[in-house]
């Protein structure tokens, strides 16, 4: 008798736990996915400021944003499906956060190489200007003479 009476109560407690227990879980998942995307954007912005090419990071970030938007729409009707999308979005955003320092390091290296190249070119051009200043007349007349070596002077 006691068992028969307790069975529907047990089912009711289980359903209540499922209902009230799952809702905060989805909400937390939603909030954490959005927060992770914000963090991923901050990391992407920093990587770009260091000179990194963030095109790939931005593409992944947009995928994560699309997933959270889909989850936001789905949340009211299908919380489980929404939770799955939030989880995927969180994972993609985490991937961006993980890759951003590498992109930043590559950017820094590229900026450093570009700066070195610029100063190298400037030194070469400066040296060329000095060489030109001192040697152009000699080189010019040597070329001129070679070009006109077959010429004869005619007295008029």
């Amino acid at each position, binding site marked *: 008798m006691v068992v028969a009476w307790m069975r529907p109560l047990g089912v009711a407690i289980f359903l209540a736990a499922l209902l009230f227990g799952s809702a905060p879980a989805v909400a937390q998942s939603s909030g954490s996915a959005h927060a992770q*995307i*914000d963090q991923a*954007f*901050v990391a*992407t*912005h920093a990587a*770009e*400021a260091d000179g990194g090419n*963030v*095109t790939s990071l*931005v593409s992944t*970030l*947009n995928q994560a*944003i699309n997933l*959270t*938007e889909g989850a936001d729409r789905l949340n009211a009707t299908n919380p489980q499906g929404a939770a799955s999308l939030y989880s995927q979005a969180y994972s993609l955003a985490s991937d961006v956060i993980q890759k951003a320092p590498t992109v930043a390091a590559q950017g820094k290296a590229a900026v450093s190489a*570009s*700066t070195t190249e*610029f100063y190298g*070119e*400037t030194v070469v*051009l*400066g040296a*060329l*200007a000095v060489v*030109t*200043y001192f040697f*152009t*007349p000699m080189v*010019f*007349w040597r070329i001129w003479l070679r070009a006109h070596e077959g010429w004869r002077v005619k007295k008029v």
Partner: protein
Amino acid sequence: MEGEEGLIDEQVTAVVVGIILIVAGVNASNFYLANRVTEPFSELGILGPGQKIGGYPTTLVAGQGFSLYGYVGNHEGAVNYYQVLVKLGNESTQVSNSTYARAAELASYGLVLVNNQSSIFPISLSLVGPGTNQRIIFELWMFNITSSQFAYTGLWNEIWVNVTAS
């Protein structure tokens, strides 16, 4: 004769040194002015169902979906995280370049764009209640790194519609 030679020497030297200086100047300006944006700005546009300016709905049936397209462009000189908020207002809703609309939010669309990138994306909406002179307001918000929050850019658009009962 010697004077003439000296003059030619100077002319040739001047021309060659001049060319070198021009190349050096172009090189320096490319190095220092690369990626410098003098007037940063963002763009917001709303396109009709044919992805063109025009063909916007003026009369809608309550509960029936309709499609538009949003256009966002980034010329801020850096990667940016945008959010387009779609709100439902009426004749008395206040919205300007400095004040965002205090109205019910219908939908939001987020996107990240690198500098000089633009994007066109579909907007699917459905208005629930009937009414005349309803305004679908589109606002562009941008993520602020310092405050870690979206801030209103001052860019907005709107479409006026009459919604009839289904």
